[in-house]
């Protein structure tokens, strides 16, 4: 299989204007992934599936990730005047990373026997801009898994043929896999 950078360059060449980013993975698995933008995600997915040297014809898994808003502390180099002399010092600075919801797809090629390729899509935020393009038109196997993401994370997939809840009942309003979900206390009377 080609490296992720090579795949990224191929997509960029095939789809001019597509905003792509390689997301590093610092964990022992070390599997980097490819972040796609909303406008070109469907086309990029078709390209990954159909390009003769890639042929990612099998989406084995689609899942969601909830990223709440978080602050990270970083050491930043700052220039300061100390006793009339400009010196460079290190300071701790806090940086806010806005929250978002993410859909992650694991792709394999049955025909060429390579994979996985991991692609990601991110929503604008966690509240009102939670729409992503559905990849079910490209990989039919995403249908139930995107419904599950819709059910448990609340990502709305545009272009999905049958977007309903799949695990919880229809009248249910929460999204239980979000980090800030607090289950209703149904057993309190018993305990």
């Amino acid at each position: 299989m080609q490296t992720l950078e090579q795949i990224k360059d191929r997509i960029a060449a095939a789809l001019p204007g597509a905003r792509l980013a390689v997301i590093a993975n610092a964990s022992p698995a070390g599997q980097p992934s490819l972040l796609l933008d909303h406008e070109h995600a469907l086309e990029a997915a078709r390209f990954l599936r159909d390009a003769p040297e890639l042929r990612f014809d099998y989406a084995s898994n689609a899942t969601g990730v909830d990223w709440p808003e978080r602050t990270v502390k970083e050491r930043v180099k700052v220039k300061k005047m100390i006793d009339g002399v400009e010196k460079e010092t290190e300071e701790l600075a806090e940086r806010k990373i806005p929250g978002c919801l993410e859909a992650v797809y694991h792709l394999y090629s049955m025909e060429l026997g390579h994979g996985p390729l991991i692609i990601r899509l991110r929503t604008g935020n966690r509240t009102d801009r939670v729409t992503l393009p559905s990849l079910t038109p490209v990989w039919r196997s995403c249908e139930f898994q995107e419904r599950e993401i819709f059910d448990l994370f609340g990502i709305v997939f545009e272009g999905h043929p049958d977007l309903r809840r799949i695990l919880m009942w229809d009248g249910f309003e929460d999204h239980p896999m979000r980090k800030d979900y607090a289950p209703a206390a149904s057993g309190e009377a018993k305990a």
Partner: protein
Amino acid sequence: MNEALDSTGGAVPGQRFPRQDAGGCGPDDRVPEGVMLTTVERLYNWGRKNSVWPLQFGLACCAIEMIAASMARFDMARFGAEVFRPSPRQADLMIVSGTVTKKMAPQVVRLYNQMPEPRYVIAMGACAICGGPFRDGYNVLPGIDLYIPVDVYIPGCPPRPEALLEGLIALQKKIAGQPLTGAGRPRHLDADAPGAFPVPEYGAHDLVGPQLPAAPDA
């Protein structure tokens, strides 16, 4: 029948007549051999406890142990409970074998309501008792006894078939000890006992509907 009653009913407390000796003539020499004196209550309960037909359904891994208990190796037929009925109308016992999800709970309660009295419930395994390891999750009912009355609780995760058999024997003892009149009588002989239990409904955040009061400590 004489022998069967002796062998299964010998341990019943409050027994009015002593056991007959083998070959003897009964508690009273005036009673001829082959005739036994007993009470309607004991005879009635003896029949009930030895033909407890469970409802055939399973909810999770505990059901696998329940199936094993009903098969030849553990052989629930020894206790008269091998006839798993596919219809609640013909069942006496509901074995809640496994995790009851909130989505499944209304159907379980509805099945229970469709069973005719006298009916009994065994909560098999940690999940059916209290939600088990999923108790704090979003989708599992923390105990089926929130909605239907449970007669026997079998702890375990899952309980082995022997544990299910012991639970069944405990249930048989309970049936055998039930008086047919008075305060402790079974529900089908009590006109004021509730016939149907409220089925919980799907709400916006959780199941909604009245729950049973907490079970008294045994």
